[in-house]
């Protein structure tokens, strides 16, 4: 079943699988940058990037989505996260180049995690559309 009209999505790879985020959530794809770490207790956060004088937290969702065998992440997809009335950039490490596509999303068939809001049916591939907030909240709660 189709969900909405055609929409734009950014497809990003994590190992052999690709996932999608709504394009309006994505700010940029960043080249490899120096991950900086300091002690903290928040799950999934790997550290921060300093980009053009701005501090961007890095949220590594690869283990949650593809397990511990995720290959090394090469780039950062920078997305907007909503915190009540405020937005904040979050860098998501990804394993390769991203792609922008416009396609009509479909309702997920079968039982998928709550953070999968729909799927994209591409040529030989079904790509899950992620709700970043739900994904992070689910993983933090585990």
């Amino acid at each position: 079943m189709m969900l909405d009209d055609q929409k734009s999505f950014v497809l990003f790879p994590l190992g052999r699988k690709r996932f999608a985020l709504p394009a309006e959530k994505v700010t940029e794809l960043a080249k490899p940058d120096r991950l900086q770490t300091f002690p903290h207790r928040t799950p999934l956060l790997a550290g921060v990037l300093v980009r053009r004088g701005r501090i961007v937290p890095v949220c590594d969702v690869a283990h949650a989505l593809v397990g511990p065998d995720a290959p090394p992440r090469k780039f950062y997809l920078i997305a907007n996260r909503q915190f009540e009335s405020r937005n904040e950039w979050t860098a998501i490490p990804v394993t390769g180049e991203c792609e922008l596509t416009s396609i009509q999303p479909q309702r997920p068939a079968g039982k998928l995690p709550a953070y999968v809001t729909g799927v994209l049916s591409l040529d030989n591939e079904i790509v899950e559309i992620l709700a970043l907030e739900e994904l992070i909240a689910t993983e933090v709660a585990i």
Partner: protein
Amino acid sequence: MRQKRVQPRRGASENVILFTVGGFRFAIAAGAVSEIRSMEGLQRFFGGTRHKAMAKVLYTLDRNGATHFVVSAAQHFRLPPSRPTRVLILRHAAAALLVDSTDRMTEISVLHALPLAFNREERDWYRGLAILNAEAVPVVNPSAFLSRGEVAVLRAITEQMQGVAVG
């Protein structure tokens, strides 16, 4: 949608002391530190073995008639044991801080808010982040090392132990 960017706090510049713990670099407001000294004269504090929450207090230091409770910064930040060599005595506080080394004093003009994505104890640990030579350095919150309640418990333990020693 354009992002409503949280502007970093700009204001009068602030002198900070850089120090390291477990390979990580931190900053603390210079005004929050009354003295930096070696570990000489520290007395082992055994109260932490009886009260798990106080395990981060490793030593006491008597100075000018006051007792300072020396907190292991490594344990406070949940880091593996490190090799402390210096003690930062905090001004107007019962706490002192055991760190691996102190680096230098420098000036920061902008304190960036800790990103909202960080939502656990670190929100109490840090006042924010400073960028020094493109490196994000957490600026610690001096009042987070020991709460008033913890100080009260530590004083009670100390008095109890002194009473036992005298009796």
